[in-house]
Every structure is written in C-alpha cells, then in structure tokens.
C-alpha cells in the first residue's frame, strides 16, 4: 500500500467505526505502541470529522504484558502507557498496524483491564496478515494481506518513519 491507499483505508474504517457505534459519545481510541499510536490519532481525527467532536486518544505499551518473556534472551525494552482518561464504561477502539498471531491484542486487552472496565473493546488493524495463534479477530480492517509466515509486513508512517507505506519483506 502506498500513502494514498493507507489514507483511503483509514477513511473507510472511520465510516465503519461510526456505523458500528452510533452513540459516538462513549468512544475512545487507544493505539498500541509504536505504530498503532499515530494510526489511532489519525483514525480518531477522521471519526471526529464525521461525528463533529473530538475523541480521547491514549497510548498503550504492552511489553510488560507479553506472554513470551520467559523465552526471550533478554528483557524487552519497556515504556510507559499514557491513558489520561477513565476507560470504565467506554467503547475502547484498540488500534494497531498489523494483526498477526493475535498475542499482542491479548496482552493489550489484559492491560486495558488494569485501567478500568470498558463497556466493550473493538479492534482496528490497518493490515490483517493472517496466521492467528489465538481466537482473536479485528472488527475493522484496512486491508487483508495474505503472507507466508517467514515474511515480514512493515508499516511505515510519516509520524514515525518519515513516509507512509506498507511493504512485505522477505
């Protein structure tokens, strides 16, 4: 995907989010670090245009909740999460760049629960590349990209990498 394709996908996803959540008052967007964060902000911005008001956005670092800590050679780099609003009773739209095994989302959902009790959690992924290892699905998908397990899907965003693109690397 190139820059314009990413923007079109996000625009379509914004419409789908509003369709699925007619009472937009209770919506909040939480991006999973690193690339999920600018995506959450873009999505929140687009939904804001459709709904006529702004939405709270937060950042989630899931490193402390990973399920593979005991298998790694060393500890992962961890960062703080920034959720300055209460999630209890809200509809949380979790946003990430790539949905792959589903383990990141599981960790994210565990962590969100430590901040409060959302009414519901929905998940938006820019790319779904298949190969799920857990029963997790995305509610809103930018593009389905079939891949081989050894391939990497790289999402680059202007806010982080200076340009917008989605590429498959072998």
């Amino acid at each position, binding site marked *: 995907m190139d820059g314009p394709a990413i923007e079109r996908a996000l625009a379509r996803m914004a419409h789908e989010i509003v369709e699925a959540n007619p009472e937009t008052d209770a919506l909040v967007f939480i991006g999973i670090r690193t690339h999920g964060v600018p995506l959450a902000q873009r999505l929140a911005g687009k939904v804001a245009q459709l709904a006529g008001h702004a939405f709270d956005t937060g950042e989630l670092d899931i490193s*402390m909740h990973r399920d593979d800590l005991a298998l*790694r*050679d*060393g500890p992962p*780099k961890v960062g703080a*999460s920034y959720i300055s609003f209460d999630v209890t009773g809200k509809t949380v739209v979790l946003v990430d760049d790539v949905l792959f095994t589903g383990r990141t989302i599981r960790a994210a959902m565990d962590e969100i*629960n430590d901040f409060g009790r959302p009414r519901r959690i929905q998940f938006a992924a820019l790319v779904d590349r298949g190969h799920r290892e857990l029963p997790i699905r995305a509610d809103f998908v930018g593009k389905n990209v079939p891949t081989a397990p050894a391939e990497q899907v790289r999402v680059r965003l202007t806010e982080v990498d200076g340009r917008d693109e989605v590429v498959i690397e072998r």
Partner: protein
Amino acid sequence: MNPPAWKHKHLLGIQELSPDEINVVLDTAAAFKEVGERPIKKVPSLRGKTMVNLFIEPSTRTRTSFELAAKRLSADVININTQASSFAKGETLKDTALNLQALNADIIVIRHSAAGTPHFLSRFLRASVINAGDGAHEHPTQALLDAFTIREKKGRIAGLNVTILGDILYSRVARSNIWLLTKLGANVTLAGPSTLVPRVFEQFGCRVTHDIEVAIRDADVINLLRIQHKRQRKTMFPSIGEYAAMFGLNKERFARTKPDALIMHPGPINRGVEIDSDVADCSRSVILEQVTNGLAVRMAVLFLCAGGKHED
C-alpha cells in the same frame, strides 16, 4: 532484532555497569513508575517467579520496597527473617542460600553486613542475585533511585554538581553513588570529617573537602548521609553534637545553598543531626519522592534481571 541492552542476570554493584546500562535501568524505571499510577498497580511480567528477601542485616524500608516491587510484577515473595531462621542455629549463609535454591527461588535479594556477600552467592546460585546492600561496599538500587530522582527533577546528570555529605568511608550508598555519578559525568564532591572522608577517594574522580561551606556553595544536589556514632565509629569523631555543629545542614547553611539545589537523603533521617527538621520538610527536599522512585527502580531491576532467560 536488536541485541538486548541489558545482559546481566545479577545486580551486584554499579561499578560493573556501563553508562548505557545505567540509562536502560532509568528508562525502564520510568515505565514502571507509570504502573504505580494506575488503578490496578500490577503487571504480569514476573508471574510465577519467586523472589526471596534474604535480609541478614535487618531493614524494613528496603525490604518492603523490594517486596512491593516484586508483588507489582506478580511475583511471589518470601521474606527470611534472620532472627527466626536457621541462622540462629548456626547454618552458614551458603547452606541457607542452597536451601532456598532447592525451593526454586528465581531471585534472591540479599542485604548483609559483610562486603562481597552478593559476589559470593552469585558464584554458586542459579538464581539472580540482587544486592540490597553489602557492608560498606555497594547499594546499587539506592544509587539508581537517587539518579532517577535527579534526572526527573533536573533533566540530566552530566555536568551537575553533586555533593555527598557525611560518613563516606563506611557508606555503601556513597560508594554506589560515586560510581554512578562519575560514570554519568557529574562533578562529585565528598564532604565530611577528615577521618570519615579520607583523601583516597580523590582517586575515584571526586573532590574531597572538609569545609561544608565549600561543599554546598555550588551544589545542584546535596545528598546527606546518615551519621552514626556506634561503637566502631567512636574513634572517628568525638560526638554527634560536634558533627552536627560542623557538618549538619541547618537552616543557616541551607540559606546559603543554590535556590534550586535538591536536598536528598537515603533515609532514615536523623532530624537535628545531619539535617534540620525544617530543611527535611521543605519544598526542595525530595526525600519522600526518593521512596516512590525506589519502588519503580526496583521493579525495573527485578524485571531486567529476572525477565527472560539469561544464560549468564
């Protein structure tokens, strides 16, 4: 995938850490500090791991700090109280440690009055050994939390003038701070009576002075050490009164410090001895924040040393 920035299984001292490694701990501590501000102050990172607080030299503050840090990481904690334990029956430290290992302890946090005890344990234990203070040698988590506090308040450590005031010779807090601050580029001044602050410390890259005015005049940070007049110190200075008169941070001296100088103390404070009561409670004193930061730093240390499979 990048090679891990932290490769140590043990934390025995600051002396063996590089500046980069120190910064990894401080950055990680910042993340864990945020956990302490959530409604549910717990993460599952060390779930299923067992940490033992082996405090041969008693301490309530450091021990509870480590205990809480471990519990917030979802680890299980055992506290060994030496009075009630087999120590009283004459079991050697080595045997005690091996017994704990037989219970599959993953982390042993050790505080002991004999320097070198954590090094000794690390030679035969599979578990991670964390030094919570070994005699006069090091107290690495204290120096790390002190550095975290300084960095949070001042934005940096390099180039700051840091004065450590008090009994340097017998202080593990002083030594760990000396290593850390010099590694990160601070200008360190050590001050106190000549019997407790000998010249040899100049070889560690510090300025040594026995004049409190010189020590505090340009200091950005003043770290006060607790002064004790125990039996072994009686030949070192005549009395607490004389010490307080010459080196105590009283109101008059405090007024001569820089207006934004931080006042720090590892605790517990002796009000009226090394620090005036009012000075301890003033707005520039970060003594209580040190305690909060201590929890985050210890979470970071436990996470880094015990999270992941270290083949140390």
